[in-house]
């Protein structure tokens, strides 16, 4: 039986935060039609935010750049969406939350508890929201304090989502672990930017944003590899996964589960496609269990 911080995802392929996660109905669709083993909601904060002006996402050669700016209806309004997702998705629903301080994080977590999320994912890693996300997530002290604060208000599993925009992601991962995190999630997007040369304007409404998609996979693999070595708690891998091969690679680097974000651009049923692909790979290789893949590369020396 495959479990992850006590949860029982249907398979190890999970919808990443901020992707098709603004409404309960959308989360249900990703689970049912898309085949996701679990779903993470859009990151929810203490007050409604409309986010940055458009363009908020563009596709580049080999990746995507986005600066949504954490648009969200705030936790009171999101409760009804969480309830729909819990009722109809048939899979674990993880509430992604953010705040500017430890107190805001626990306020949001407590506020969402009535919606009965299966776990919380703390977004301390969004690279393009002043005072939120990576602004707090590059400080080990803040990450530890925030994690501990959320653990204080709930017994649910707490995942901490890390930014790769730091000198050493394992310091931040260790801080999350010390704060009581049940898992870390790596990676959020890389700081990036694109300019329209015809006009000279930066393309994103926010001028710069976060890079995701194929381009970041090697960075994600490296972060997961290092975190797996440094931590006791599970690492959930995310970043540039677009096929079952990518998912296997990131699991071999050390991921206990894999999140998929930008790749829903290609097709919604990428989740079932990947999990079927992994099953076939396990059979071909005569591996008893998906657990055999987790961290395998560390043994190959």
């Amino acid at each position, binding site marked *: 039986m495959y479990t992850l911080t006590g949860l029982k995802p249907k398979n190890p392929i999970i919808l990443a935060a901020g992707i098709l996660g603004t409404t309960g*109905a959308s989360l249900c669709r990703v689970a049912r039609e898309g085949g996701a083993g679990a779903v993470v909601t859009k990151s929810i904060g203490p007050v409604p935010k409309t986010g940055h002006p*458009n*363009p908020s996402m563009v596709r580049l050669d080999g990746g995507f750049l986005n600066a949504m700016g954490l*648009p969200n*209806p*705030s936790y009171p309004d999101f409760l009804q969406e969480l309830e729909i997702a819990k009722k109809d998705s048939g899979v674990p629903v993880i509430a992604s939350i953010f705040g500017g301080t430890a107190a805001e994080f626990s306020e949001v977590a407590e506020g969402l508890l009535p919606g009965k999320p299966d776990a919380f994912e703390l977004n301390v890693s969004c690279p393009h929201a002043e005072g939120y996300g990576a602004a707090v997530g590059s400080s080990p002290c803040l990450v530890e304090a925030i994690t501990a604060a959320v653990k204080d208000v709930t017994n649910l599993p707490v995942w901490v989502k890390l930014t790769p925009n730091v000198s050493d992601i394992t310091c931040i991962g260790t801080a999350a672990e010390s704060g009581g995190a049940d898992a870390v999630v790596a990676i959020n997007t890389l700081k990036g930017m694109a300019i329209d040369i015809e*006009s000279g304007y930066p393309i994103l409404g926010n001028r710069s944003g976060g890079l995701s998609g194929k381009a970041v996979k090697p960075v994600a693999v490296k972060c997961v590899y290092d975190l797996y070595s440094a931590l006791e708690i599970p690492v959930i891998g995310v970043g540039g996964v677009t096929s079952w091969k990518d998912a296997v690679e990131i699991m071999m680097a050390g991921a206990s589960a894999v999140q998929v974000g930008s790749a829903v*651009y290609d097709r919604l049923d990428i989740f079932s496609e990947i999990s079927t692909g992994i099953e076939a790979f396990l059979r071909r290789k005569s591996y008893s269990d998906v657990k055999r893949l987790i961290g395998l590369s560390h043994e190959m020396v």
Partner: protein
Amino acid sequence: MFPLDATFPLNATIIRITEESPSVRTFFFDLNFETTEPGQFVMVWVRGVDEVPMGLSRKNSITVQKVGEATSKLFALKEGDSFGLRGPFGRGFSLPSKGEKILIIAGGVGAAPLAPYAESANAASSEVHTILGAKSAEELIFEERFAAAGKVYISTDDGSKGTKGFVTDVLSGLDISACDRITVCGPELMMASVFRLLEDRKVLGKAEFSLHRYFKCGMGVCGACCIDRSGLRVCKDGPVFSGIQLLDSELGRYTRDASGRRIKI
């Protein structure tokens, strides 16, 4: 000329601007979207301001109603100025086959994506009927284009032209059962009335509606534009949906703002 998913903005230079009504202008540009289906949309980037979705009113034009910041900035542009353009995105209206009888229901600037639809239906030798509605006579858009493609019924809220009232007032008098396809675009309340009427007449199966929701990514990734209860994405699975897809939906009841909060309609 362009790949179907030009997701990075191209530079579009305005070559001509025509005034369709006091609040609606058509901007012709120097790019040609050869492979677009009527009903698909482009994202129009008014640099330094915002990027907003617009239907294509021709292969090389958009027809814009001035409503807020981005559209006002667009109205301030002149021939020779430029904006960013990417697309076409999404699913358009299903194209009619030869001999089919088509009913088009267009309200206000909803005529923009439906005029090219009328023209391709006519080119495909379908029989085209259009109900064109607006607040007043001067707000009617593309009447000549619809007239050139087939028969047109007009309705205006103030009765300044055609039937006084709403498109539904015209619609209820027509023999809908004779139509093979019904395509609808306009203000949400209008579409909701049409929807209810077609539902009553049990002809939703042949109707298609083009929805308007707040778009962020415009490419089916972020989830800002998903509708209840299906969870379908207006930007990618739509903007055009069949009547059946919209059964038990939020249509006419609520929409969402940029933060995702539900807003009553």
